[in-house]
């Protein structure tokens, strides 16, 4: 699944470590999500949604 997490993070001037701290996960997890190696669960997707002030479907695309 493609996503815009990296783009949104960089827009805000946050490092991966900053985002990891806000989400209460590791930097490794943030990197895995950004590179598409790992798709977050709904609770984590909602957390990202609240953090970036965006709807979930505007941050994640299923590639179809």
């Amino acid at each position: 699944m493609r996503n815009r997490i990296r783009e949104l993070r960089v827009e805000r001037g946050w490092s991966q470590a900053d985002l990891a701290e806000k989400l209460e996960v590791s930097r490794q997890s943030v990197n895995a999500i950004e590179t598409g190696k790992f798709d977050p669960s709904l609770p984590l997707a909602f957390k990202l949604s609240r953090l970036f002030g965006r709807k979930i479907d505007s941050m994640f695309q299923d590639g179809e």
Partner: protein
Amino acid sequence: MAWNWKKLGAAKKSLIRRGAVVLVAYEVVFVAAMFWVDRTKPAGPMLFVLALLTTLPVLAFIATLARYLGEEVDEFHRQLVVRCLLWGTAAVMATVCFHGFLQLFGWRGSWPAAVELGVFLTAMLVAKLTYRVQNRVPADADAMLGSGGVR
């Protein structure tokens, strides 16, 4: 990736603490049971009871891992731990089947005691190191520029 206790999550710290206690308990129970068997030469049910006693810390170790999986809030890490456990389980199952096949067809040799435990821990460690290399993160400055992770 340097190992930093302060950066570890609460669940992982608890796992390490509980895991250390369980491993020490395993050593104590195993050595005590061996000492007892060596001194008293028990037979029959008593020997079975002692053998069962040494399995309790192993079960406690699995319970510790299960508790960690319930407490870990980092779902990506949780997934990696589950995969490592699967590799460990696969290695043990393969070892047991291999050994069983050899014995079934007349092999009379023996392997070191508790070899399955060593196989399980080794497979888990190899899987953990492999996943760590596969998922290593770029320097934060590079990630800041959006240059991407190592695939």
